[in-house]
């Protein structure tokens, strides 16, 4: 049966499976993300959201299916995709400034003109200023707090102007207050640089607060293959565009926000609440779903 035509966006993932031995982690993932989107991916632990990110990054390969960026299959990690991890983003032997400069110094080789070098330094300093960490530019990572390190890590990822910035629970290890500061910073930079961001988190509130689009990845669903088992992995069970709100974190206390959190918690995090694949809330305009005959037996 020919698949229905679909609009291929900037990042396009289709029929993607990932399994480790017998265990299926990602089960027929379809996802298309437009340029400029701040797409957050949330889900219960072990649902494979970081695995999905690593597939886009090229750190791992899908067992089957396609992962495309701008219509080209992604290869090993390269300069087109930036990454911010929860830790290990910074190189411990380099100062904050040198960490940010890396992206420029790799491309220029050993012998570069002093002028280019000064230009790059200015660029890196500017990014550090935008990340509000410039006064610590000479410190080594271990001399910085967790939040400061992530500020540097974001600046470091942005200097190469990647086409998509991947973030794997970047604020997961930070205290609540610092975490909110960082969320504001990310929104600011996202607006200023018009970045496309693929943001993985286990924190529902963070995902709703940051995203222009939220995707819930979950293993809690049902389809025509019967009950869940090791041969069945997580799917995108929820895909919705979010209104771009003002940055104020006060919005997290609004009734609308709290209702959405409740709805998503049920959709993705409740092992007892199983929706059928045909009944997922995939209301985002770029959303699409290719089901196999096994998953959905038409006319039965």
């Amino acid at each position, binding site marked *: 049966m020919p698949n229905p035509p679909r609009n291929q966006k900037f990042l396009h993932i289709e029929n993607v499976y990932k399994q480790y031995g017998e265990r299926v982690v990602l089960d027929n993932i379809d996802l298309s993300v437009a340029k400029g989107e701040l797409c957050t991916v949330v889900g219960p632990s072990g649902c494979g959201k970081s695995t999905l990110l690593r597939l886009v*990054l090229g*750190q791992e390969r899908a067992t089957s299916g396609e992962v495309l960026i701008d219509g080209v299959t992604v290869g*090993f*990690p*390269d*300069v087109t*995709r*930036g*990454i911010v*991890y929860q*830790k*290990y*983003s910074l*190189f*411990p*032997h380099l100062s904050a400034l040198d960490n940010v400069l*890396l*992206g420029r110094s*790799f*491309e220029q080789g050993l012998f570069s003109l002093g002028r280019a070098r000064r230009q790059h330094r200015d660029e890196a300093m500017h990014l550090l200023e935008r990340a509000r960490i410039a006064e610590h530019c000479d410190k*080594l*990572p*271990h001399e910085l707090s967790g939040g400061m390190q992530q500020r540097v890590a974001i600046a*470091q*990822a942005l*200097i*190469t102007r*990647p086409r998509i910035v991947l973030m794997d629970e970047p604020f997961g290890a930070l205290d609540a207050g610092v975490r909110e500061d960082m969320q504001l910073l990310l929104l600011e930079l996202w607006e200023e640089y018009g970045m496309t961001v693929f943001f993985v988190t286990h924190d529902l509130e963070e995902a709703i607060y940051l995203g222009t689009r939220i995707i819930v990845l979950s293993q809690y669903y049902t389809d025509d293959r019967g009950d869940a088992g090791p041969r069945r992995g997580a799917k995108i069970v929820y895909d919705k565009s979010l209104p771009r709100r003002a940055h104020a974190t006060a919005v997290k206390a609004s009734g609308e926000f709290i209702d959405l959190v409740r709805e998503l918690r049920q959709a993705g995090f409740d092992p007892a609440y199983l929706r059928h694949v045909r009944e997922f809330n995939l209301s985002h305009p770029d959303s699409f779903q290719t089901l196999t005959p096994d998953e959905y037996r038409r006319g039965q």
Partner: protein
Amino acid sequence: MSFRVPSLFGLHAAPSPWLRRALAALPFVLIVAVYLIASNARLAENPNDKLLPSLAQMVETVQQYAFTEDKRTGEYIMLSDTLSSLRRLAIGVGLAATVGLLLGMNMGLFPGMSATLLTIVTFISIIPPLAILPILFVTFGVDELAKVMLIFLGLTPLITRDIHNSVKKMPAEQITKALTLGASQLQIVYRVMLPQIFPRLIDAIRLALGAAWLFLIAAEAIASDSGLGYRIFLVRRYLAMDVIIPYVLWITLLGFSIDWLLKQWVAWRYSWYHR
């Protein structure tokens, strides 16, 4: 009511800094005391006894070896022995460190390299270097080369394996991260890995130095015309304990100082290491 913290005995003991120093010195004092008593007793029985020379005898010998020009050669014997030993040690350890670093780093990063080399390096590291000493003397002659080669062959597999393991333990995220910043494979090796693995190399050298001294003394004992090991085994024929004991202490002091200097270097130059 407060409780008393014992100063010496038990799990909860918290010796004061002065007590700690005194305790650390205690074994040394005991050994020296036992030696002096035994030496005195033997010398009282036979003033010509050579086995346990008195302190005065040893001081006199050191005076002659370390601070008096040799009548025949015009050199200070202990100084020239030390210099030729340290030279062999430095060349051997330096070569082993360079080769071990390059091999270990490339094996740790490139699966093709480790698939090819890991088994043979592990195999070679198990050969007792002293067992092939005769082969080295036959192959490289009895001059400097054979001694340096013994240290080199003994240490390279150790250092290679150590570096290989440390590179393997580096988080894979770092390499991915560097790739996303546009690093080439060569830049990953020499700009990302090398500076981070360097303090680890110094640690590996510190551990390997004990073995290096062993190989050096053994090689010098068998065929040489200078060096600390050579001297010890030369005067052994005359049962000259008054030379051997100061030489052994001197070697120990040298080894201890080198180890301390390397440790300080890491602490000073690589403050991010050990975090």
